[in-house]
């Protein structure tokens, strides 16, 4: 169960989906969230370099 929860919170598919959902939520937000998410998505996209 713990392992399932860990995977649900940390898996690349789940994290990418969360970033995509946050992006949609950020469309009507102030300036901080869009800029933060722009950096986050670009940083996370380099996952393959690990």
């Amino acid at each position, binding site marked *: 169960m713990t*392992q399932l929860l*860990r*995977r649900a*919170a*940390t*898996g*690349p*598919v789940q*994290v*990418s*989906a969360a*970033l*995509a959902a946050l*992006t949609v939520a*950020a*469309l009507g937000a102030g*300036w*901080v969230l*869009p*800029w*933060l*998410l*722009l*950096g*986050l*998505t*670009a*940083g*996370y*996209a*380099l*996952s*393959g*370099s*690990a």
Partner: protein
Amino acid sequence: MLSSPVWRDCSRIYFTAGLVAGGLAISALAVVLGSLVRPVMPPALGAGLIAAVAVFVLAGECGLHRVRLPHRRAQVPSTVIAAGGQAGALRFGFEMGSGVRTHMPSNLPYLPLMVVLLVSTWPTALVAGLGFGLGRAAMALGRHYSGDGGWWDGQWQRHERLLRITLTMAAVLLTAVITFR
């Protein structure tokens, strides 16, 4: 990298701090360089350049071309890690977080770089840099805390194309919001 001494115990904290510091440093450099360009560049030209980079990056991630923008074609040198426990972890994180001296399997970081260069202010640039460092850390921390690095790698490799396109589309959408709002 993730099985190296950098990724053990408290070195993890220094590595993560280095990632964030690297992201902040490269965004600070970009906003300073951008301050030389922004005053003389018409806003429409800046927006056009950003749009062109966005299309180029998205096309690449969708497999329409294989052009890679300039980047180092190797990982951060192992001599950096050999520099020592916490200092080595901090420096290794900094170099990965700045993206200057590490392999980049995607052109996507060039998109926020262009946005920071052409339309940012100091606060927005630093927030983007913070996000970049945290994004890199999220990958490393996620893999570590998944408890099964092999599973994490398998997930990434199995869905890599879809994940890259999803993240790129999100970045393009955010770029449009930031640039044209």
